[in-house]
């Protein structure tokens, strides 16, 4: 029952392979945290999930082929972990939904950058599979093929999910379909345009 002890196969002794694996894994931690944050929407739950995924990856290191895409491999582990935990308990799913709904109505941090808040909220309105596809391709830097591997679906499916997500996101932001200080519709898109302008200007300059 306990995951680490009592396995019939004894753990391998520490080796050069293990060291290399660990070095790569450590470098991936920030990315795993970011992906987990977008899946759970909650920093604490995200770190728990990322830590679980990291442990799973470490325990499964014998099945990883060095030199292949470790980032995609660990993302797949994290994603599987997320969905199996959700399946295990419908109650936590309910809680997730309630949390998401709360986030949609309540924006309580006045210091938070406006455009980022609104993007986060708009993301929360997307169906899960669209959100994860968009994050992987649009923010995680994965090719459609890699995202398809991570989500264990066809490349065409990822493409259509990303495309639908982009359209829906833009529509939501333009409609401003959620309240924030009673500001007029269209403000969300405007602030995102302005902020993106500033960000890309800073990058070039």
């Amino acid at each position, binding site marked *: 029952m306990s995951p680490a002890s009592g396995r019939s196969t004894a753990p391998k002794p520490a080796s050069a392979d293990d060291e290399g694996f660990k070095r790569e894994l*450590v470098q991936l931690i*920030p990315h795993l*945290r970011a992906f987990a944050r977008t899946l759970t929407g909650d920093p604490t739950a995200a770190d728990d999930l990322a830590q679980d995924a990291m442990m799973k990856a470490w325990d499964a290191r014998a099945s990883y082929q060095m030199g292949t895409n470790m980032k995609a491999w660990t993302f797949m582990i994290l994603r599987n972990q997320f969905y199996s935990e959700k399946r295990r308990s419908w109650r936590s799913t309910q809680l997730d939904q309630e949390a998401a709904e709360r986030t949609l109505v309540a924006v309580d941090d006045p210091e938070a950058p406006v455009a980022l808040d609104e993007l986060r909220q708009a993301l929360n309105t997307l169906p899960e599979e669209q959100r994860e596809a968009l994050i992987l391709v649009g*923010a995680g830097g994965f090719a459609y093929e890699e995202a398809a591997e991570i989500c264990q679906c066809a490349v065409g499916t990822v493409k259509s999910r990303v495309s639908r997500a982009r359209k829906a996101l833009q529509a939501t932001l333009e409609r401003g379909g959620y309240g924030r200080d009673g500001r007029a519709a269209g403000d969300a898109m405007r602030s995102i345009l302005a902020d993106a302008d500033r960000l890309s200007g800073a990058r070039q300059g």
Partner: protein
Amino acid sequence: MIDFTDSRRRQPAHPTDADDSSLEEARLRQQAIGVKLRHMFDEVVNEPVPDAFLDILRRADARTSGKDKA
């Protein structure tokens, strides 16, 4: 492609200018969303990694080499 257009054209030409500018507008908006999306993700990537993560790996290491469960 299926051609739905009737041979009897009522309009001599499409309002191409308007089409182009709204396409350009949509492209700009998608680009802006993309920039923000990456920014949002990178913000977390750039956070310092909590010690707990490295502690876990250290413990895993001890388990592998020493098999102690302390």
